[in-house]
């Protein structure tokens, strides 16, 4: 159970970054940390004691235990989507820097043209 709690702690560190930091790049880092924590929790939940990777082969001993392929399939797509959303966030950040000359979100609130 301790590994699950450690994954939750990692998620909370990312949440702390998003709630406290004022820099857009730091916010992106916090978001990435939260995403990694969720991926880690999925794969931890799908592990089975003494299991092997879910790849069937011709010469497998009968009674082989496999880990769960379902969380791995969900996480596989989520990782690639994470890269796309991170790149979108970073491009927004760069555009904001071009307009306001800062990454500080407190100064961006003043939406003067």
């Amino acid at each position, binding site marked *: 159970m301790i590994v699950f*709690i450690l994954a939750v702690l990692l998620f909370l560190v990312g949440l702390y970054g998003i709630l406290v930091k004022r820099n857009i790049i*730091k916010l992106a*880092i916090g978001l990435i940390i939260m995403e990694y924590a969720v*991926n880690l929790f999925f794969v931890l939940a799908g592990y089975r004691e003494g299991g092997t990777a879910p790849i069937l082969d011709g010469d497998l001993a009968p009674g082989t235990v496999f880990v769960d392929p379902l969380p791995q399939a969900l996480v596989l797509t989520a990782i690639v989507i*994470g890269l796309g959303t991170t790149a979108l966030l970073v491009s927004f950040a760069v555009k904001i820097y071009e307009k306001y000359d800062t990454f*500080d979100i407190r100064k961006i609130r003043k939406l003067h043209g």
Partner: protein
Amino acid sequence: MVTALILLIVLMILGAIAALESKDLLSGIISLGIIGFALTVIFLILQAPDLAIVQIIVETMTLVILIAAVMKTTKADTVETFGKHSIFLGLVGLVFVFVFIWTAVKAFQQMPGFGSMPLRMASEYVNNGLALTGAGNLVAAVILDFRAYDTLGEATVLFTSVVGITAVLRKLGRNRV
């Protein structure tokens, strides 16, 4: 094996704190690399080679994109200010963290422990996956046959994000002041 997992996750937490608390944005991003590559090793330990292949390259490309963005703008972190307001926020945050961890611990006590999940769907996929789809890699069988709608949706999200990036960073058709 559980000891190695615990050590790696503690390393990830330390890397996360270093990434968030560093004064320089570039060193923060490089500390983010600790988390991603430790996650790759964890995926290998947890018998998920597909995820390890994807994670190690996606982590590298994430670092390339973030470093390119930081090098072209600024490396300095914003200055944090503290006051009465931040003390109140810190107290609320601590209460929230304790509630979250308490709920998580209560939930994990109801779950079976690490490594002994019941995995009813997994046994269904493992026993019948080869006969139903003909694919030896059960992860490929799940993402492209049993749950192909999910993959179509994810491909659409990727397409949408590329369209969004192209629209945000375009040069043509912008109103020049």
